[in-house]
């Protein structure tokens, strides 16, 4: 057999990649351990429960590679960026940090906002205990190992003890080059009693370039801290989005997490919240709008490890054309997590005869004094509602759009940040084709 050519993520590519980065030893070690895991995990089958409805066969990783340099000329049509004033901004294009800025007053109070690539050099003591150790572990599956070996950068937010940031912060993850791979890592660390809001979006510079995102998000919410995090996935329809996203909430901390899935060709997000300390609480909102031949898949897990914790998940999906949405939800309650209040629900609205949703909730409960409820509904647009709207002069499409907007309102109503509610509503309108 002739040796295989060097591809996007093989051993040669890895060595080349590591050589270009000039990173401190602890980071290189982490990468090397992860690369070995990646090779090993590639030989193992994926968990069927999580992956059997997600067809990855058309994905050819060797068609993609992290860009060696930055496309400075790339322009992004963003949804969130101009909607609010931000206390700080970080942008990445093709894995490279292209812009960053933070309010001086916050910097003076010890807040860090910037790119992981830079911050690992200067702030080992802050990052090392959290990076790929507590929320997302390299050995979780082949994608986390892949990401941990090849991460290209990503937004880091660190808020020291007791610091409250009132204005939201913004993070853009952009892909510009055809065949570009983004393996960005979002890392948020909130110390005791800190609070912040981070709005992040993904965007492609062009509508027709293929791209790959193998990402990770780690949200570490310290005791009594309060984090609002939004990720709006808005890639073009030729981009693959594979991500492991995890939040860990300590004692009396709160996390409000909103995930919106609009773009991509195929997306699979493994989303996990862990209620790690007494009185911790998490609210998870999902807004998914799949059209064309998109497949948007979610595996969500709410893990209660401590007593008196609360988690509340609501996903709303709208599907059109031949799109497909998969949602597999799970609430896990450990034996010691008494008085847990867990809720999960997925509602889908199907706009066409050929779209399809698979929504499967699940519970695994080891404690005996808990309140956990789950549910999933799927329905088509009601012909009587359309008729009623049309009787009031709305065209058939306008009626359908009203009903879709109304359907999403159930989840918008839970989102505290007005700019996000507005952005989502506008993005949905745009995707519906209103006002073109």
């Amino acid at each position, binding site marked *: 057999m002739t040796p295989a050519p060097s591809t996007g993520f093989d051993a040669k590519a890895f060595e080349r990649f590591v050589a270009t980065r000039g990173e401190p030893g602890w980071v290189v070690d982490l990468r090397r351990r992860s690369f070995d895991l990646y090779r090993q995990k590639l030989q193992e089958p994926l968990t069927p429960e999580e992956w059997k409805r997600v067809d990855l066969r058309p994905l050819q990783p060797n068609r993609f590679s992290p860009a060696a340099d930055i496309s400075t000329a790339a322009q992004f049509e963003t949804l969130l960026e101009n909607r609010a004033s931000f206390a700080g901004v970080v942008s990445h294009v093709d894995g490279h940090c292209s812009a960053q800025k933070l309010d001086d007053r916050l910097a003076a109070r010890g807040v860090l906002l910037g790119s992981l690539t830079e911050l690992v050099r200067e702030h080992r003591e802050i990052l090392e205990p959290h990076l790929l150790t507590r929320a997302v572990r390299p050995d979780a599956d082949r994608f986390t190992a892949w990401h941990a070996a090849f991460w290209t950068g990503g937004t880091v937010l660190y808020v020291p003890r007791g610091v409250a940031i009132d204005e939201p912060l913004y993070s853009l993850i952009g892909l510009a080059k055809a065949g570009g791979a983004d393996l960005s890592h979002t890392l948020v660390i909130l110390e005791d009693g800190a609070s912040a809001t981070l709005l992040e979006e993904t965007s492609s510079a062009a509508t027709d370039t293929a791209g790959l995102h193998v990402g990770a998000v780690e949200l570490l919410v310290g005791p009594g801290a309060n984090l609002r995090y939004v990720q709006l996935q808005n890639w073009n329809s030729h981009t693959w989005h594979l991500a492991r996203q995890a939040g860990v909430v300590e004692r009396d901390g709160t996390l409000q997490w909103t995930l919106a899935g609009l773009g991509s060709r195929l997306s699979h997000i493994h989303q996990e919240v862990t209620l790690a300390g007494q009185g911790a609480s998490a609210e998870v909102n999902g807004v998914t709008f799949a059209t064309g031949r998109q497949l948007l898949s979610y595996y969500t897990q709410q893990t209660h490890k401590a007593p008196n914790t609360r988690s509340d998940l609501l996903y709303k999906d709208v599907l059109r054309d031949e799109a497909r949405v998969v949602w597999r939800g799970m609430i896990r309650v450990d034996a010691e997590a008494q008085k847990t209040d867990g809720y999960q629900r997925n509602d889908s609205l199907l706009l066409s005869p050929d779209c399809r949703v698979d929504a499967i909730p699940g519970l695994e409960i080891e404690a005996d004094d808990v309140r956990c409820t789950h549910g999933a509904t799927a329905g088509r647009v*009601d*012909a*009587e*509602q359309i*008729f*009623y*709207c*049309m*009787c*009031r*002069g*709305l*065209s*058939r*499409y*306008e*009626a359908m*759009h*009203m*009903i879709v*907007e*109304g*359907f*999403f*309102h*159930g989840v918008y109503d839970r989102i505290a940040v007005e700019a996000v509610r507005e952005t989502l509503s506008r993005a949905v309108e745009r995707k519906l084709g*209103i*006002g*073109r």
Partner: protein
Amino acid sequence: MSSVLKIEKLWVAIDDKQILKGVDLEVRQGEIHALMGPNGSGKSTLAYALMGHPKYEVTEGTISIDGVSLNELEPDARARMGLFLAFQYPVTIPGVKVADFLRHAVSNIRNPERKEGEGLLPMRDFRKELRSRMDELGIEQEFARRYLNDGFSGGEKKRMEILQLAMLRPRFAILDETDSGLDSDAVRFVSEAISRLSGPDMAIIIITHHERLLEINKPQQTHVMLAGRIVEHGDARLAHELHDQGYAGIRARHPDVAAEEEAQAVKNETHAVVKT
């Protein structure tokens, strides 16, 4: 010149079951008509067919306004031509606020050429107008921000229909049992509102089993439906008589149609038995 809504020899079927069997009716802008008839005689069917409900198939006959046929038009086009139906059973649209819904509706009806995404009525003007219409109908302002008919009581839904009527000011309004489910104060409010709204520019077809609406809004003509046909026409006195004495007299005067009604009822019953 006042417009005319003309229904000629209208036959309507639902799922191949013939419900209306040749209805003729002519309504002129500015007139008030009462449409009465026992349960199941086809009053709502006529209302839906006029609006163009896709399940109600016109198998024969025409519906027209000033000679322009509506038969092939979608419900929204009919609404934009000035036809309005206050539903017997209003539909709930979760997540859609009354004010947003109405702003779209009003923008379309006042600007029939409007396409989706084009300008809506200016927010301030619209809000002001909505506020005063709500006050006139005794509807709390908070309803504007509530989701359309979501969790509304029966009576609140009916009032919401009249609010829409007041905002849309159609040329031809059909009120399908708007008075049912309203408490007596609400009936008065609604009756008075209708009488304020009616005038030379609006025709109203009132479908009702009661008399209260008709006391304030006295019909020039009353029509009686039986088994999918209009079997009698009269004036306000006919409505009064039916209310007092029921439909026995009508059935006696039209034994053939009454027999058909009977046969249909038996058939429906057998259907029901077979289904269970």
